[in-house]
């Protein structure tokens, strides 16, 4: 008698979770997206510190949002933080491996990063 009761509860919990999880995900993505949009607006005005903060927030709210990581990488690159930029680009590509725009950004970044690393030092 107890087993069907437990099964029913588990089923109910799964149902509730199944119904609320997508909504929670959508909320997170929507909040992250508004941070990304604001970041783009301020970056276009040259306010890169503010843009970095917004995209860091977006990546924190929704760590699966590839665009946030891509934009964050661009911001780090603009500020000469090459290690952070590389990690962010790699994260963006891990989340969206077929995105040619992220790949293009990453290729251009690598070209500059190689130059910055120098050559045959002593």
């Amino acid at each position, binding site marked *: 008698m107890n087993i069907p009761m437990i099964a029913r509860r588990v089923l109910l919990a799964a149902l509730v979770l199944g119904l609320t999880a997508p909504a929670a995900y959508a909320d997170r993505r929507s909040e992250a997206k508004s941070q990304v949009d604001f970041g783009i607006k301020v970056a276009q005005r040259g306010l890169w510190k503010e843009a970095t903060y917004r995209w860091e927030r977006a990546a924190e709210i929704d760590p699966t949002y590839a665009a946030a990581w*891509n934009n964050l990488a*661009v911001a780090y690159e603009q500020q000469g933080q090459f290690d952070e930029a590389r990690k962010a680009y790699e994260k963006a590509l891990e989340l969206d491996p077929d995105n040619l725009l992220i790949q293009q950004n990453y290729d251009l970044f690598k070209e500059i990063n190689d*130059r910055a690393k*120098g050559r*045959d030092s002593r």
Partner: protein
Amino acid sequence: MTARRAATAVSLGLALGLGACTSFYEIPITTPIQPKLDVSAFRRVLVAGFITGGSEDVDANLETVRLLRSQLRTKSDLTVIEADVLNLADKAAPASETVKTEPSDQQEADRRIRNQRDLEPFEHVFADVAFWKKLGEEYQEPLIVTGTVLFTPHSRSGMVERAQEVVDAFGRRRVVPVRTYMERKGFILNPKFIFIDGRTGTTLYSESFREEVLYSAQQNTPALSSYFELMDRLIPSFLSTLSAQKIRGTRVLLK
């Protein structure tokens, strides 16, 4: 009905197109590249002189010192010390050869140095800490730039691919790649820049480069022009050792 469907498809396509257009933004960025060497401890730089070899048509020691000083004067924050150009080849000549060589005869040294192997017996001078420290004291402990420059004539013959314009049977002009045998001559520039701490006499950093240029055998390009053409390619890398640079580019921001 079909027309309505077509209209719906067109507007959907337009909407998707517009959506796609607004989902990314191209943005100009300026990437700062930090210098390879921290020169914040120095306010002055002395381009002392170079051990040079190869072509006798160019005084590579004098020309390199003059070129680097003028570049540093305009593109770095360091004060460039104007001093006589050091004849390092004399200072560094192996003991057995100094007897044979007239003192201060740079051309004589250049005649002896034809390739990298010829340079090796002279290179011990860069590790002479006492010498560089003494020089540093004379000029109030600057950053010292020195090294070796090998500027050698070079020729090569073989098949090369070049573009040739052809007119086909219909009178249309086309450019096609054609392989032809060519004799070419030019120069190879092999500089090694060494940065020495004028306070201690020790080497802080060194960097080697290799650039070459080839012209058709009929072309008569003066050695000095080739020297400057090759140095022009290296100067940005040389400067990036001492001063920060900014590289402009564009990236794509995504929504």
